[in-house]
């Protein structure tokens, strides 16, 4: 039974977490390899469990009830198609990250602050996906949050990381509170918390609606949905890079899983306004995330903001699926939900790849600020090549995998004129435009990220003396790159594998894929649209190969090296190059006034005046300013007011306790 093996592996991960501190204390040299090696093996076992459950059919699925946890609930675990799909996403990421960390972890200064929490974090994520009752789910969720918080705080000497940890803790506890309330509403008065029981209830529509809102707040804050994304660009970069990859690539997917599980599976029939809410938030996150990303200087923060964008894209797909589901368009809903989960999978691949690349840059040069990098393509050729692959994939360029999932979402949008609700008819094309805008901005963002970091001339001594990363790190990245290519060139089997998931969520599935030859995929029907990543890839390879052969054989293949031309005025100083900020300047100028209230103050001294000219740029984070700052103010104000409660006499306290007791008794009496 895969589920038993999966649970044993999770227990194994927890065991590794327990043993890790002892290892660190006793045998420093081997502890890193042992912990990550064990995590790698256990994640591989979990991955196999997920694969067998998704591909092997119902014989390999199943559920288990263990007599642990609360005595009157027990602990339910399930391995159905949905949890199997996300188990694969989680554990493929975990496996590769562990492999990468065998090399990367050698650079860790305080392994004792990372090693015990890493397997615990993996165990937490796996348990969330496997749990089948609200209690176990929330415990696992909190376990995942706290262990990842500990990893964020691994480098706690940096005050910025401490601030990141604080904000993360706050948002994580807020998120869990929302989930707690959501499950409380779902369980109803009987208090049966098993998912199977929740599913069988008939839910009142307004309660289901409230559950959706709570899930958007709870799971959305973990996934990084705007405007709840503020912790993400702080916390994800603060952790060690392999953990950043897991948090950005995998933990956000666990949140997506929680959202899908509750909203599609447990909360009953959706209403059309659900789709409106989800679509709006998704489209907003996509554009806001990438606009932030394109302006960042910190490589890891840039990647974290791009996660906000990709989570937005996943939620656009989920919103479409909800819209189609309420209107009983099962085929279209299946397309949207499949595209969404496929994009979640793809994002876990290329975001891990990119974070690993950033980790290599960090270990190789010690820099995260791209303004101080440059020219790394010469010093770190393999990292550069692999990072470029990740950039192509995340920018949704064919023939890689990012394009396939975004193409499928666009195809789903084209089906939406058949929706009866007017609000959706206006919102869906608008979110399509936002999606296209986000994809185009992502391309600009990653041209900038790759071009400034890896191309051009080194901008600092750190970049000039950078070292290529260890073989472990490079091999882990090759594995991800290969899968990005395979998922882009042969997407059919991936989509077919997701058909039981969409069948269970929306009661429909996409057409069985290899209808046409050459591995092409078809979203709805052959006459509407088709795409063959394989042929596109093959043609590109053949065309470039033919061009090179013909030109080299029949024309010239001579090369002469010379100083750069640069219109005859090359300047040897690397400071004359385009910087990251100057690259982003046109985009900032076009989108900045709206998105960031960008303002430029120029003070030009009069002729003859010797004071320096100044240019100051101010960008404002409107989400922080309009949502979080007032909230913070309100909390502080309330705390100030309530402060007097700390300085009362004992008589006043006693009377307060008495009053509270009376009030509660009255409440209970009137309720019953």
């Amino acid at each position, binding site marked *: 039974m895969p589920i038993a093996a999966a649970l044993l592996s999770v227990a194994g991960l927890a065991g590794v977490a327990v043993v890790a501190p002892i290892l660190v204390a006793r045998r420093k040299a081997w502890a890193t390899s042992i912990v990550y090696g064990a995590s790698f093996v256990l994640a591989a076992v979990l991955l196999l469990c997920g694969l067998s459950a998704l591909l092997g059919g119902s014989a390999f699925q199943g559920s288990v009830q263990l007599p642990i946890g609360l005595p009157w609930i027990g602990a339910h675990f399930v391995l159905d198609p949905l949890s199997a799909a996300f188990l694969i996403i989680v554990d493929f990421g975990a496996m590769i990250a562990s492999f990468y960390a065998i090399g990367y972890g050698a650079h860790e200064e305080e392994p004792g602050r990372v090693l015990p929490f890493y397997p615990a974090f993996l165990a937490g994520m796996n348990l969330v996906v496997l749990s089948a009752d609200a209690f176990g789910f929330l415990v696992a969720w909190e376990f995942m949050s706290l262990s990842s918080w500990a990893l964020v705080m691994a480098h706690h000497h940096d005050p910025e990381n401490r601030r990141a940890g604080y904000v993360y803790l706050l948002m994580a506890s807020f998120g869990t509170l929302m989930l707690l309330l959501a499950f409380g509403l779902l369980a109803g008065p009987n208090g049966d918390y098993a998912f199977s029981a929740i599913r069988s209830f008939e839910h009142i529509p307004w309660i289901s609606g409230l559950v959706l809102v709570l899930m958007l707040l709870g799971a959305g804050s973990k996934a990084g949905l705007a405007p709840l994304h503020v912790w993400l660009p702080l916390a994800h970069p603060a952790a060690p890079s392999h953990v950043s990859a897991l948090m950005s690539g995998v933990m956000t997917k666990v949140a997506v899983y929680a959202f899908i599980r509750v909203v599609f599976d447990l909360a009953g029939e959706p209403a059309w306004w659900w789709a409106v809410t989800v679509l709006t938030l998704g489209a907003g996150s996509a554009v806001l995330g990438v606009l932030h990303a394109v302006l960042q200087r910190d490589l890891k923060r840039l990647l974290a903001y791009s996660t906000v964008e990709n989570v937005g894209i996943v939620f656009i797909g989920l919103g479409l699926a909800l819209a189609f589901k309420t209107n009983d368009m099962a085929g279209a809903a299946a397309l949207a939900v499949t595209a969404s989960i496929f994009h979640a999978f793809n994002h876990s691949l290329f975001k891990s790849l990119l974070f690993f690349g950033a980790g290599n840059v960090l270990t190789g040069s010690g820099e995260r600020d791209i303004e101080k990098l*440059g*020219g790394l*393509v*010469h010093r770190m050729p393999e990292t550069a090549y692999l990072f470029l692959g990740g950039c*192509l994939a995340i920018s*949704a*360029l*064919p023939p890689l995998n990012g*394009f396939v999932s975004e*193409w499928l979402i*666009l195809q789903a949008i*084209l089906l939406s*004129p058949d929706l009866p609700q007017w609000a959706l008819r*206006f919102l*869906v*094309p*608008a979110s*399509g*435009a936002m999606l*296209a*805008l986000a994809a*185009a*901005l992502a*391309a*600009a963002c990653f*041209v900038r990220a*790759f*071009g400034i970091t890896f*191309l*051009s*001339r080194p901008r600092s001594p750190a970049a000039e003396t950078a070292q290529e990363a260890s073989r472990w790190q490079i091999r882990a990245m090759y594995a991800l790159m290969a899968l990005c290519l395979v998922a882009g060139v042969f997407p059919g089997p991936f989509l077919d594998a997701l058909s039981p998931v969409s069948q269970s969520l929306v009661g429909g599935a996409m057409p069985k894929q290899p209808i046409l030859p050459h591995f*092409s995929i078809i979203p709805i029907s*052959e*006459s*509407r649209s*088709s*795409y*063959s990543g394989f*042929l*596109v890839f093959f*043609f*590109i390879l053949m*065309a470039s190969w033919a*061009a090179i052969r013909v*030109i080299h054989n029949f*024309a010239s293949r001579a*090369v*002469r090296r*010379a*100083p750069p*031309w*640069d*219109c005859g005025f090359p300047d040897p100083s690397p400071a*004359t190059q*385009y910087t990251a900020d*100057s*690259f982003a300047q*046109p*985009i900032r100028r*076009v989108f900045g006034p709206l998105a960031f209230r960008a303002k430029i103050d120029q003070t030009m001294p009069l002729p003859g005046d010797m004071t320096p000219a100044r240019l100051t740029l101010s960008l404002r984070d409107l989400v922080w300013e309009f949502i979080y700052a007032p909230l913070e103010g309100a909390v502080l104000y309330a705390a100030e007011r309530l402060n007097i409660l700390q300085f009362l006499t004992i008589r006043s306290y006693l009377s307060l306790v008495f009053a509270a007791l009376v009030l509660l008794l009255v409440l209970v009496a009137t309720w019953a």
Partner: protein
Amino acid sequence: MGLILAILVQGIQMVLVLALAPGLVGFTRKVKARLLRRKGPSILQPYRDLLRLVRKEAVLADNASWLFRNAPYLIFATTWVAAALVPTFAAGLHFSWAADLIAITALLGSARFFLALAGMDIGTSFGGIGSSREMLFSTLAEPAMIMIVFTVALVAGSTQLSTVAAFMVDHSTLRVSLGLALIGLIIVALTENARVPVDNPATHLELTMVHEAMVLEYSGRHLAVIELASALKLLLYISLIACIFAPWGMARQGDGLVEMAIGAVTWVGKLAVGGFLMVVFETAIAKMRVFRVPEFVGGALMLGLLGTLLLFVSRSF
């Protein structure tokens, strides 16, 4: 036999777009020169230029990386594949379903991605300025293109260009949404091909330049391949506009060689008309400042969005 013939026709299309692309550029240059009362070079001049460049040795900057050397071929290959997938003289070719209009747009995006990276490789200020501006324009031109694709796809019920062309021949009625899409597509085509109101293909050493700034460091065969790729892109866009908005004369799926020959002749005629109109437009207006371009391209995005919204309101618009 049928399969071999089908693949052969597809191959002819690939060779034909490649062979005609420099001729189209030569033709537009000739017309432009005549409109400016110059004599202008021969229509064959681009072919001679390409041959000359290909035979020369390539001069690479000292710090040029592998990306710089390989990017031209990748740019060329992606553009060529995209151009070969747009129906020109015949619809429904053997591999036409390999990529729909969205994929063709994205393929051009791949070419642009590599071109912008190549511009940044040497670390000169000109390359950076070109890449940065190119990516800015694309952030508006690409969503505009997607919205135009939406408009067309909602009318024709498909994103496959062959199906769209067949639909347009059978149901050729005037529609508001298609009119908006046509204007939008022309704006996108002018932007993507670095034509006059956006960029000037005829100048070097101007701070306004975009495309030429990125390829400044290229020479010899690399430059030839990039020039050929931009010629292909021009041909692609004119063919695309012709295929969607004027698909008459194009051979249909299963038609014989006679229809294909007719299709080829009309296609060349459409290319000439398209190129001529573009040059007349270019000669009549001035180049814009760089920061006016986002408004111009943003207009295309709005037109595309408006077209799509109209179709969401009613399929009959």
